[in-house]
């Protein structure tokens, strides 16, 4: 029994007349861990913005959780973590707990206040990312990797069914990248949170990812990670228009 969480059918999009995405069709099912790969300018961010409803497709259909995106109202089911670099300015006076708490904003809705057990929920969300000892620290004083964990906690506090991560490891020290991915895998396996992970490099596809989609204006490959492993580097070169290295 399959449960499509995201379904795109023949979706196209143009920016000022330039084709950014062409005839994209794919689906993501419950519990998938999909890595979306593609070079700069391949339309990865545009695709995410379409899924998040920030842009409207020129043609084609997008369904979220079995419902057309126009009528889909449960936006709190979707957690979103952007690139660290463009997220916030580091002098911002906010504690880690305040940032995590703000992840509930959409879920509890306009005009309503935070529930009484909100502090407990904040700690629980921070525990899931291993940051429970940082609740009272200023967000700007954490390292890039720690900040990204906090932003994941901010998404988790609303108990999302789908987590969309846009190049979350940009700006994170190399040695922390692996533990960051391990944490995502754990969330995927233990909580059955469906993950879409956009990455710039093919290199960092971890062995735990279940599906891979290769995007360059259009979907060149979408399937199981194992099948992706059998694709030759020559083929990837052709899709991306430059030399690609695969690391397993």
């Amino acid at each position, binding site marked *: 029994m399959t449960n499509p969480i995201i379904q795109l059918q023949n979706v196209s999009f143009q920016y000022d007349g330039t084709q950014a995405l062409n005839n994209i069709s794919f689906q993501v099912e419950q519990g998938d861990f999909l890595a979306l790969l593609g070079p700069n300018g391949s339309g990865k961010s545009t695709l995410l913005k379409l899924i998040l409803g920030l842009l409207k497709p020129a043609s084609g259909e997008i369904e979220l959780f079995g419902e057309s995106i126009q009528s889909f109202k449960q936006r709190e089911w979707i957690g979103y973590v*952007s690139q660290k670099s463009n997220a916030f300015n580091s002098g911002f006076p906010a504690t880690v707990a305040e940032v995590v708490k703000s992840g509930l*904003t*959409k879920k509890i809705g306009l005009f309503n206040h935070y529930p009484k057990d909100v502090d407990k929920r904040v700690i629980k969300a921070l525990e899931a990312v291993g940051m429970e000892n940082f609740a009272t620290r200023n967000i700007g004083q954490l390292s890039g990797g720690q900040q990204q964990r906090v932003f994941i906690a901010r998404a988790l506090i609303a108990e999302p069914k789908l987590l969309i991560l846009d190049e979350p490891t940009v700006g994170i020290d190399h040695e922390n990248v692996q533990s960051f991915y391990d944490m995502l895998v754990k969330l995927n396996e233990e909580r059955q949170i469906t993950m879409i992970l956009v990455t710039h490099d093919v290199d960092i596809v971890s062995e735990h990812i279940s599906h891979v989609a290769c995007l360059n204006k259009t979907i060149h490959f979408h399937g199981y990670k194992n099948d992706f492993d059998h694709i030759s580097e020559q083929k990837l070169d052709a899709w991306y228009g430059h030399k690609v290295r695969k690391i397993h």
Partner: protein
Amino acid sequence: MIEAILRYEFLQNAFFSGLIIGIIAPLLGVFIVVRRLSLIADALSHVTLAGIAGSLYVSQNFAALALLNPIYLGIIASVSGSVLIERLRRLYKHYEELAIPIIMSGGIGLSAIFISLASGFNTDLMSYLFGSVSAVSRQDLWVVLAIAAVVVIFLLLFFKELFVLSFDEEYAKASGLPAKWIHLLFMIVVALVIAASMRIVGILLVSSLMTLPVAAAMRLAKGFKQAILYAIIFGELAVIMGLVSAFYLNLAPGGTIVVTSILILLFVIVSKKVTIRNKEAAL
């Protein structure tokens, strides 16, 4: 001083208005500063001046409107200015700051015309530019109170949304918050607070009460609520000390309040540096 306040209504008006403004201006100021909108407050205050000058001109020349309180036209000008700024910011998406000089010079230009039409500067206008201890009427105090009520209700309703919007606008939009509407409402409330504050600190110095206490608070606060608390404490300190010294030294309160704010800011910056140095020395 306390005796004088009990005795004279004009002093009561000035002090109560001052105390209220000392809370609401830094309170909104925290959001303004973290969203990098400080200069917008400046632009709006100059638009408010156009409304005030226009009102003074009208009441000089039309007998029927002689008693019109300039604060009303000031509020209308300020709120229209805030809506216009948002329009312009969207029009020049990649050069948003262009909206500020456009609106600011527009405001000053209109003010200059109305001031010369109303045959130049007079004491009335001076009190609007730099604030006044004696010119605040009971009616002004009621207007300030009403605006404070609007601010409190607005923040009670939208505090968490404003926090998300201030911290990370992209995330706010991605999570489906009506960012555009909340921002527009916010700008209108800012315009109201600017109009409310001008009686005490004066139009030219309104934005300082929204930014200087916040600048000091941000040096000390770890979190957002803490920043708000410190900003309000510093704001109140500046207003009280500024009004008292303005009263005794017969100075414009706008000047004394701003100078006090700057002294507080300097004190905070220096004492923070000293504590950091001491800590480092102890290690």
